[in-house]
């Protein structure tokens, strides 16, 4: 049996306290657990052996070390993932002209489209730009393959870095320059018909930018309301109080988007139609406005959104929920207010926001009352997003499961849905499918890493040096298994720990019924399939 370690048992005890004003941050997790959690959340990988050793030697370094994780080059990718569920652009397929591209190019294009709004967010995060740049950026950051598909021109860098795999580019078709509000990917993903008059798109924008969905409000249609034809529907929308509750703000918001109306909703165009911008005059008669503030073009909308308090609050909520691995509730409002304040103090840089959440007692498993009130649920364990689990295992093993050049765990037609993910984001609960997926990723990684080591080649993962140090023809020494737990799971065990003894026994059992190769694969598989990778 596996023996439980005392320090972990002690470490998970709930601590009820008030949030400290300054200085020491309350934590119910041991420093190594916080280090691993923050590393996975901000870099998508586990801490290195060197970082673990540093924390063991001096736990007081924890706060500065995890704050520095936000400076890691991989931070941009993780920020993208925190916002991906809001924008919903990571879908398997986008409609491309039939026969225009070979399979590999089409796959690359479809993956690239999904990243467009997210790469701007990564750029904002890694360059410490204010979050308002999301609706003010004149540029987009795209996979170069999109330069051929859309009316884009690569532009000279301004000295700031661009997200990996992208180029800075600008649309040439006369569209307003308003960041994500004018990105093709957003409108290709959220299509509209003339009849719908961009309302669905407006709701998608409202959800992504303001964290408010009109659809959260159930509609109880009055049974005496005549909605039997288009004209009566238009009348009801304009005059009926129940309809006006949403449409009075939704329809003017939607009037900004007519330049993206396509002749065929299922065949989106790359080119923005400046001449259609005022089509609202024909189809709805509703002039553009943002919650009562009138405007003309998308640049006005961008200014109004950037000045809306909900826009800032929404960014705070998305990052908070992304890092805590659960939805925010009414009990989290006080904590959200604390982080909003930090976000504003940090000039709306995402790093300032992330670092504020890192200091949140809930993030460290502590039940505490924020100074603005509330009783947030502490996060003792959270469920790994699919991407984080897959990346962490791939980084360790050097093997990433891919289909048509795209990560299989990012495709609904692959393993994403099975593992609990979707374009809406990731499940926050453990699922049977996620366990299956983890197991297969673990097996694949273990086979790749061990076989590479047996062949004397570099498997490419962070486990490779450890495998190279071991004689794979014989049983691993307990110290080697301790080191494996350290590298693969950020767990500090001792050679006489029951878990290590059980692992050694397992190696022997497999070697007896199979081969030493299979025994090493089994050992590495257990390390990669461990619950520590799925809940942390």
């Amino acid at each position, binding site marked *: 049996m596996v023996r439980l370690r005392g320090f972990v048992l002690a470490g998970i005890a709930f601590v009820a306290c008030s949030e400290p004003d300054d200085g020491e941050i309350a934590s119910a997790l041991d420093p190594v657990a916080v280090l691993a959690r923050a590393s996975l959340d901000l870099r998508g990988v586990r801490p290195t052996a060197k970082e673990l050793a540093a924390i063991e030697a001096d736990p007081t370094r924890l706060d500065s070390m995890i704050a520095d994780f936000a400076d890691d080059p991989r931070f941009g990718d993780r920020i993208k993932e925190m916002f991906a569920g809001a924008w919903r652009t990571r879908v398997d397929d986008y409609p491309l002209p039939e026969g225009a591209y070979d399979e590999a190019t089409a796959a690359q294009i479809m993956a690239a489209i999904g990243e467009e709004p997210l790469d701007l967010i990564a750029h904002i995060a890694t360059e410490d730009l204010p979050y308002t740049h999301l609706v003010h950026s004149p540029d987009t950051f795209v996979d170069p393959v999109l330069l051929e598909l859309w009316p884009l021109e690569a532009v000279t860098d301004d000295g700031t870095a661009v997200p990996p795999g992208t180029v800075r580019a600008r649309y040439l078709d006369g569209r307003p320059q308003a960041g994500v509000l004018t990105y093709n990917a957003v409108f290709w993903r959220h299509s509209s018909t003339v009849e719908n008059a961009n309302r669905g798109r407006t709701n998608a924008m409202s959800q992504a930018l303001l964290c408010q969905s009109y659809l959260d409000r159930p509609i109880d249609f009055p049974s005496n309301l005549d909605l039997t034809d288009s004209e009566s529907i238009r009348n009801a929308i304009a005059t009926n109080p129940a309809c006006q509750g949403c449409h009075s703000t939704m329809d003017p918001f939607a009037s900004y988007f007519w330049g993206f109306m396509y002749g065929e909703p299922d065949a989106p165009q790359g080119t923005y139609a400046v001449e259609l911008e005022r089509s609202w005059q024909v189809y709805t008669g509703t002039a553009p406005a943002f919650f009562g503030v009138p405007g003309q073009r998308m640049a006005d909308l961008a200014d109004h959104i950037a000045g809306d308090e909900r826009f800032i609050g929404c960014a705070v909520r998305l990052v908070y929920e992304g890092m805590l691995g659960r939805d925010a509730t009414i009990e989290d409002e006080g904590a959200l207010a604390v982080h909003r304040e930090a976000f504003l103090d940090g000039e709306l840089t995402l790093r300032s926001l992330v670092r504020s959440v890192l200091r949140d007692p809930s993030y460290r498993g502590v039940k505490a009352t924020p100074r603005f009130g509330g009783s947030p649920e502490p996060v003792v364990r959270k469920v790994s997003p699919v991407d984080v689990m897959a990346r962490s295992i791939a980084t360790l093993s050097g093997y990433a499961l891919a289909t048509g050049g795209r990560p299989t765990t990012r495709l609904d037609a692959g393993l994403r849905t099975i593992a609990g993910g979707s374009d809406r984001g990731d499940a926050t*609960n453990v699922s049977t499918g996620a366990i299956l997926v983890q197991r297969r990723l673990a097996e694949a990684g273990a086979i790749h890493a061990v076989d590479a080591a047996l062949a004397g080649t570099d498997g490419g993962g962070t486990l490779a040096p450890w495998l190279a140090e071991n004689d794979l023809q014989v049983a691993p020494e307990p110290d080697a298994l301790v080191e494996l737990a350290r590298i693969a799971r950020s767990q500090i065990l001792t050679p006489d720990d029951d878990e290590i003894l059980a692992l050694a026994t397992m190696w022997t059992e497999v070697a007896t019924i199979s081969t030493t190769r299979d025994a090493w694969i089994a050992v590495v598989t257990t390390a990669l399939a461990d619950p520590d990778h799925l809940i942390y």
Partner: protein
Amino acid sequence: MMLTRRTFLGSAAVGAALFGGVRMGMAGKSDLRGRFLFVHAEGGWDPLCVFAPLFDAPNIDLEPEAAPWTIGGLALVDHPARPTTRGFFERHHAEVALLNGVSTRSVNHETCQVVALTGGTSVDRPDWGTVLGYAGRGTASLPHLVVSGPVVPGPYSVFVAQARGRLQQAIDGSILLDNDAPLTLPAAAPARVVDRFLEQRATALVGMLPNEPHAADYREALSRSRALVDGRLEQQLVSGEDFRGRAATAISALSAGICRCASVGTDFVWDTHEDNRLQTGLFEAFFADLEELLARLHTTPGPNGGVLADDTVVVVTSEMARTPAFNGTGGRDHWPYTSMMMIGPGIVGDRVYGGFSSLYTGIGVGPSGALEPAIPGISAESLGATLLTLGDVDPQEYLSDAAQPIPGLLA
């Protein structure tokens, strides 16, 4: 009792709480009535083509050649271009409970789906299939198998498996062979040893974190995933290319007792904004498929003897209907009162429940089972209460006290 999100957190833990703390892996009742096969006509079908013979309503457009038709207790719409649809009802009207005027409270596909499947607008509440599956988790390794179509697992993710994507390849391991950089498969016997080690780890985790729902869920899910892998030789859980293939997968899983509920979607094809005549072809294909599905249920053995049709209820939904008037392109847009069907044991068929007003809004069912104009349609909660009752689940565990089964529908 209304389950709040907080009480939902941690499905295995909730299972223990609701069912008296029985052993996690086998929690749940084993003597529940019935299995459920949910069929979703995604995109919003047009009841005015088949289910809603509103020929006397001046503001409602019906098709030029459509005609009222009554077969048994069902008043329907007939059309010369839809002989298969007519044939289906000629053969099965006695089994069909037709629900008209079901309110899904929105004109947005996703919201309507959530309402139709859960009774509310929050995705925190699990759908009917998941609740019913969860109640039967003691006997099914994958209580709710979603072959395709919508699902709202809420906090019960452990008990829902999606066959879309490469589930079967994940189960049998062949995904290691079929990817950009193929590998060999791991040997079976060592995999068993790994299984045992991970079970120990899961047990240790639960011991270490007794109050942490994710830990309990992990152990439960690990056990279920192993059961799936163990059964791989008997099953092919694939989301097939067409509806019939997917339905066959669902029926196969029901037959094997892998799941208590299965869900299958038709693909998102019913959203006929631009040419409503397309509904004819869709209904014809759909009822041919449904005929085939019912025939399979009558010939496929159930896991406890007999055939699946003995204890499997087919629930046919479409998240919304279409506007009563044709739009400028000959299509119909979204409408919040729709029709659904229930077919199978335990229900009173050959009847229409609920109805539509002359403005095409819903009319509900009064306590006597008759139409009650004061009730604005059949609520999705009422639909849910009916299904849960049919499946031996107390609706009050999940729904408001006001949610009652549709009067007269349960046998």
